[in-house]
């Protein structure tokens, strides 16, 4: 009997009038947990009853504690007829199960009814007494902390990052059960709410178990989603990143967790050691015992990466020798061949030993979970401690279209998960399950990452879009190389090639350096030497799904960039429909991509962060929405302009073209001004000066970075801003240059217009969809989180794609305009974490849901840099001491590169035939050779060509110079000195900025206790989080049969969203918290039937409940001791 749950019902207030005659209510309360129910006395004739009940005690398993919510029902006593329900409160008691989180839940909760909404409030106190359970076979995972936050939570330190955890549970949807025909809507809604609450509890517990087994104590970046598959059931799935977190506190704590887990989770003991081998987990060929796993895996990446590319090479090498993955991550130009050869030997043997011991142990332990976890080196985190993220390859994404079948649910009827624990158990006869679907997608993602020479995927997320029986599964992330120092060994495929990773890259540009081998690039790419350190190659454009690393050097401000797209499709059923959709997907991705690229250039930026591409499926159309935050990374080359070209050089409409061209150029100029993009000219020599030489040399000397001009053609190239000279070039077949826009038909004109439609935010506003706004760090205390929903009805039956696009674009633009207008009182302010979700709820409806936070900042200081971390001097020194051979291979850098985004589309249906067919496409698309399909093959930026030439030249000259002098070291030193100076400069304003923001936050100290702030970000400006109280994960259904009376659909949804906010705040306040961070609205499904005067809406929200204190309060403690910060903050918390 591992736990005792105690609940006390204190009082109610503002109850609704249930007895018309007396205008009063005779209320009593039922308290239910599991199958036990208690009742309070009836408090007669009061709208503000005082029950002051005894403590109701439930003696339960901790497994139940994790799964079940405490269910409180308020009823009106009726002597003659059945008691009427007033409403319910579900309290998730999970936060009480962690030792460090909340100790009591106590406060006023809104009493919620799915038909009437909030009806009064009830005051409840809940406590849990947990007994220690050392049972090694236990099913509960009490004590594992969950965080929605996608970075390491503020008052913790990550000692180890274990890696990816995932789980899903399925059940029948009560709404679609036969019984639903005879029960009331209320009963049906409540059954659903309860079921989902149970399922998420179970899911969380299961994930917790996995984490314990891996030896971790927390899940960060926990992302839970529902798939309402209708007839075929209900899927609750979650992914997250398992970590071992240490509470930052007075030195003694750090190891408690690691000491603990052998006791708490004996299984982890066994799993721990196999993890040590880690370098070469599943794929190694020398696994005679487990022949099952390696084959499917190796098959996938190899088959999906055609020979010409490097990714396949490491794979084959890997299988031919029991080498580490050293080769898998191609050298970034710095890894000197010689030294690698030398060191590889001993390392290899070491690794082999480890692998073998691991194998033995693995044989002993039956844990397949761990294998699974290590199989996917994915991280749901989007921002990382400094030094963690070494290099970023680019976006990897995969989509697959599935046909939903009824989920096979055994007679037991209980929630059951079809978890595949081990690949060994997968046989062809096994029914296709959701798990297997995701497994496929993840495999694909992984192979894409490998193709980019990366061993990990960060900023990883998964999503679905369902319409009738068709479901699009999507996953995306950013291929990256991580510093293994922070990882639990084994969670990455990559060998612990220490020498490689210890070579430090400058923190503010290192992540831009290409992770793949420049000689064997996974796709055509155009590389230059890093504009920052001049030592390594960088791509010309970088797309990522993560947040901008805090140490990254940027110029100017960032801004939200969106690509929007509608595609009509024929209505169809079943497989035909799925095929139609999967055929459309690649084109959509391609177009979205082109749009993003063009818009990026239009804003004169060169990198996208937080890229999120959503494709939503409806009966007769597909919607695509890509959002990201554009930024100018000073390490990357300057983007070129956009050139408009007619169909033929001598096109009659040349006047028209030039006018458009002018508009575009003007826009670019305006945007440069607007976003204050003035890249530092530390190394880049003034292009004006070098312009002349450029053009000559570029073509002969350096080995032209652009393909030879072969045919005279219709494509015009724009050059750097400094050069107006046009040269005519041909790009190889079909690879359209992103920045050359051809006008060959009216559609193209439309496209260009739509490019220009995006209005810049009004003065005083900035916007982004990431955690940090590039270029702004001096936040003041103003915070306004909001959710906005807009549904558009398309009345015009004969809409074209173009027309739809326009409508969709306008919808998004108008939403933004509305936000700016509504929030104008907050100027200067920035809309952060703008999260757009699109859906096609019905045939002619488009729904856009946006959640974001507006934050005020201090305008005075916006110019200053945001470098958060002081530059590590040690690493600088190390840098200086390292010598690298200079590889002046201009040739390689001349190949075309585009962003590393890889997209593949695959269709898997039960029909094997179709499946094969589509798989082929998927494979070919996956690697990106197939040019006409894969968007990635697309755009090449030649715009900055001249620019680039100048810098190459300059670089070449510099290098030649130093070589001549025979002293590489000197030049290097000067560079790094220059570097350190610049970083120091960057440091100083920070201090100022900080103190200023501290001062400004003072104003907010006197706020009332009940105020609960909410933000989708992981932090609240001006405050410090001192305690995480647990995860908030709530699911609500609201239904009405009197839509008109409630103010129509808008009135209905408006009050529902307000109610959801209210319930979230109440739960947080009851936990003792004063804020929700990393808040998100995962689901907002709205259905209406105006003719019947009915509507229904489902909302799922999540976030982390926290206690935060104004930064001024803890300033003293923070300044006195860096290490003992939490000692100070804990006392703060106590006060």
């Amino acid at each position, binding site marked *: 009997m591992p736990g005792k749950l105690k609940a006390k019902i204190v009082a109610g*207030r*503002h109850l609704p009038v249930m007895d018309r005659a007396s205008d009063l209510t005779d209320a009593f309360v039922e308290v239910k947990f599991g199958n036990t129910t208690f009742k309070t006395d009836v408090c007669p004739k009061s709208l503000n009853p005082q029950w002051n009940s005894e403590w109701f005690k439930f003696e339960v398993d901790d497994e139940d504690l994790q799964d079940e919510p405490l269910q409180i029902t308020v009823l009106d006593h009726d002597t003659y007829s059945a008691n009427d329900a007033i409403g319910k409160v579900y309290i998730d008691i999970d936060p009480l199960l962690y030792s460090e989180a909340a100790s009591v839940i106590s406060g*006023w909760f*809104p009493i919620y009814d799915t038909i009437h909404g*909030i009806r009064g*409030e009830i005051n409840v106190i809940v406590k849990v007494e947990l007994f220690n359970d050392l049972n090694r076979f236990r099913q509960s995972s009490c004590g594992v902390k969950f965080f929605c936050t996608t970075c390491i939570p503020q008052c913790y330190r990550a000692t180890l990052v274990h890696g990816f955890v995932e789980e899903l549970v399925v059940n029948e949807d009560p709404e679609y059960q036969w019984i639903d025909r005879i029960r009331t809507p209320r009963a049906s809604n409540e059954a659903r709410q309860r079921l989902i609450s149970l399922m998420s509890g179970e899911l969380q517990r299961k994930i917790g178990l996995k984490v314990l087994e891996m030896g971790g104590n927390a899940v960060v970046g926990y992302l839970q989603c529902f798939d309402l598959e209708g007839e075929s059931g209900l899927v609750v799935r979650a992914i997250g990143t398992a970590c071992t977190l240490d509470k930052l506190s007075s030195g003694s704590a750090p190891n408690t967790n690691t000491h603990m887990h052998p006791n708490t989770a004996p299984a982890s003991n066994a799993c721990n050691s196999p993890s040590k081998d880690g370098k070469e987990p599943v794929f190694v060929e020398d696994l005679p015992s487990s022949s099952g796993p390696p084959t499917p895996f190796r098959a996938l990446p190899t088959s999906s990466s055609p020979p010409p590319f490097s990714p396949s090479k490491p794979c084959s090498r890997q299988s031919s020798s029991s080498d580490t993955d050293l080769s898998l991550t191609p050298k970034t130009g710095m890894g000197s061949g010689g030294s690698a050869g030398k060191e590889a030997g001993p390392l290899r043997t070491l690794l082999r030993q480890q692998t073998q011991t691991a194998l033995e142990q693995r044989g002993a332990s039956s844990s397949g979970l761990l294998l699974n976890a290590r199989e996917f080196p994915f991280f749901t985190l989007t921002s990382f401690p400094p030094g963690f993220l070494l290099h970023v390859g680019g976006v990897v994404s995969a989509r697959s279209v599935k046909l939903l079948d009824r989920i096979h649910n055994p007679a037991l009827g209980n929630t059951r998960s079809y978890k595949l624990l081990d690949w060994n158990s997968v046989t062809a006869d096994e029914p296709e399950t959701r798990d297997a679907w995701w497994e496929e997608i993840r495999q694909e993602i992984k192979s894409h990452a490998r193709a980019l020479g990366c061993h990990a995927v960060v900023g990883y997320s998964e999503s679905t879009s369902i319409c009738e029986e068709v479901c699009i599964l999507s996953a995306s992330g950013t291929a990256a190389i991580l510093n293994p120092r922070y990882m639990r060994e084994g969670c990455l495929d990559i060998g612990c090639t220490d020498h490689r990773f210890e070579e430090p890259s400058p923190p503010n540009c290192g992540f831009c350096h290409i992770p793949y081998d420049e000689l064997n690039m996974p796709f055509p790419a155009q590389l230059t030497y890093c504009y920052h350190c001049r030592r390594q190659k960088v791509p010309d454009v970088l797309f990522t799904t993560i947040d901008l690393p805090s140490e990254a050097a940027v110029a100017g401000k960032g801004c939200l960039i969106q690509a929007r797209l509608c595609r009509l499709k024929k209505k169809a059923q079943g497989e035909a429909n799925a095929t139609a959709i999967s055929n459309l997907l690649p084109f959509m991705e391609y177009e979205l991509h082109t749009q993003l690229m063009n818009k990026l250039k239009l804003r004169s930026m060169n990198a996208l962060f937080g890229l999120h591409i959503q494709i939503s499926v409806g009966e007769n159309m597909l919607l695509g929405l890509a959002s990201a935050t554009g930024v100018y990374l000073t390490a990357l080359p300057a983007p070129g302009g956009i050139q408009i070209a007619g169909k033929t050089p001598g096109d009659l409409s040349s006047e028209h073209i030039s006018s458009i061209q002018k508009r575009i150029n003007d826009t670019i100029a305006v945007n440069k001004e607007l976003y204050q993009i003035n890249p530092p000219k530390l190394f880049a020599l003034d292009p004006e000066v070098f312009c002349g030489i450029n053009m000559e040399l570029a073509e002969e000397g350096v080995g032209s970075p652009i393909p030879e001009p072969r045919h005279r053609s219709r494509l015009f190239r724009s050059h750097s801003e400094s050069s107006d000279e046009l040269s005519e070039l041909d790009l190889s077949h079909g690879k359209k240059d992103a920045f050359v826009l051809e006008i060959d038909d009216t559609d193209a004109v439309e496209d260009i217009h739509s490019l220009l439609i995006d*209005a810049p935010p*009004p003065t005083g506003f900035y916007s982004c969809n990431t955690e940090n706004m590039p270029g702004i760090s001096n936040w003041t205390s103003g915070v*306004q*989180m*909001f*959710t*906005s*929903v*807009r*549904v*558009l*009805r*398309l*009345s*015009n039956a004969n809409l074209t794609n173009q027309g739809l696009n326009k*409508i969709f674009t306008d919808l998004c633009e*108008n939403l933004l*305009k*509305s*936000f*700016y*207008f*509504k*929030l*104008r009182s907050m100027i200067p302010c920035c809309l952060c974490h703008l999260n757009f979700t699109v859906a096609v709820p019905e045939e002619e*409806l488009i*729904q856009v849901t946006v959640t974001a936070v507006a934050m005020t900042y201090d305008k005075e200081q916006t110019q200053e840099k945001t470098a958060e971390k002081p530059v590590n001097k040690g690493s600088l020194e190390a840098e200086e001491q390292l010598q690298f051979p200079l590889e002046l291979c201009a040739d390689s850098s001349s190949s075309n590169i585009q962003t590393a985004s890889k997209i593949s589309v695959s269709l898997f249906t039960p029909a094997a035939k179709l499946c094969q067919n589509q798989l082929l496409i998927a494979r070919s698309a996956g690697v990106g050779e197939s040019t006409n399909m894969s968007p990635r093959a697309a755009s090449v930026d030649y715009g900055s060509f001249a620019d680039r030439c100048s810098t190459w030249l300059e670089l070449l000259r510099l290098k030649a110079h130093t070589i001549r002098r025979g002293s590489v070291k000197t030049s290097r030193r000067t560079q790094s000195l220059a570097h350190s100076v610049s970083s120091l400069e960057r440091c100083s304003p920070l201090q100022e900025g900080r103190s200023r923001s501290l001062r400004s936050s003072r104003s907010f100290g006197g706020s*009332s206790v009940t*105020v*609960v*702030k*909410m933000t989708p970000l992981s932090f609240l400006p001006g405050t410090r989080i001192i305690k995480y109280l647990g995860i908030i994960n709530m699911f609500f259904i609201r239904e009405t049969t009197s839509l008109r009376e409630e*103010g129509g*659909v*808008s*009135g209905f*949804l*408006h*009050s529902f*969203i*307000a*109610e959801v*906010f*209210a*319930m979230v*705040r*109440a739960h947080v306040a009851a936990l003792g918290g004063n804020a929700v961070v990393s808040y998100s609205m995962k689901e907002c499904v*709205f259905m209406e039937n105006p003719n019947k005067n009915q509507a229904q809406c489902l909302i799922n929200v999540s976030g982390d409940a926290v206690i935060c204190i104004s930064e001024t309060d803890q300033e003293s403690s923070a300044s006195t001791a860096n290490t003992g910060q939490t000692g100070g903050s804990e006392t703060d918390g106590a006060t």
Partner: protein
Amino acid sequence: MSVELDVFVGNTTIMDEEVYQLWLDGYTVNDAVKVRMEGGVMDECEASKDVLLSDTMDQYRTFQMCERLLHSPAKLANQLLFQIPPHRQIMLIERYYAFDDTFVREVLGKKLSKGTKKDLDDISTKTSVTLKSCRRQFDNFKRVFKVVEELKGPLVENIRQHFLLSDKLARDYAAIVFFANNRFETGKRKLQYLSFQDFAFCAGQLISNWTVGAVDNMVEDMDVDLDKEFLQELKELKILITDKDLLDQHKSLVCTALRGKTKVFIEMEGSFKNLSRGLINIAAKLTNTKDVRDFFIDLVEKFIEPCRSDRWSAADMKLYLTHYTNSAHILDTFKHQVVWDRYMGVVKSCIFKMYHD
């Protein structure tokens, strides 16, 4: 293509004071949009009409949802549905309970009944306050009335605590409640020149001097009714006009004091007996509910009008009433000094307030 649904919900409820005022004033959404466009708010943020419309709709919805809470403002502070900073709550309540003086002037002293409510459209046309706004104001009066009717203790304080209003507004409501409860006649043509603030001041005087609560806060009854005992005692003042000696004595005392201090001395001397009779008859009749209702009209007819026709200045009036009140104390045979003071104190300040054009 049409916008089917459009909502915006902030964690902290966003409310634009300007839109709130338009809503309170009973503008329709479209009219409000027009007013806002004319107000130039569009230039602020490069907004279009659609943006303005959407914003106005959102705000109107918010206000409608809030309205329920505003009916019992104490709930606003501890409700959970809207997170509204305290200073905003105060603003919301204060503005919601604010009223138009022109409107309140029309219903002042009327029974707050359904019948009156039916006349609101006439009042609306007359005052050019929108019907919606009239209804809100009327319902506010009624709501406040209903709540404080039953309560013990000081009226103003009760209103302030129950409706979280500012002191000024609470006093105004006290006046409205007091007038409604005693059904003072304010609508006669002769009283038209008086503003609501004049009456509110008088009501304040009456409440703080003539009610039961005025003498004893602990008493069961409340502030809304006049002190019956006191009204009875007022009959005793009649002696000042019925006793010929006393009347003459009073007159000579007042005239001695006034001589040479005013230009209208002759008129004062001439009308002394009439004026004194008028004031004392008013006092003596106050036991009748009907005459209580006519209190203000009587003051005007019996005192203010005669003085005005004699062209007394406000200063003359003050001088006269001060001496009139004080002289009574010197009268040896006049024993009702306390009642006299309680009566004349209020009448004096009411007349001071009401003596204008």
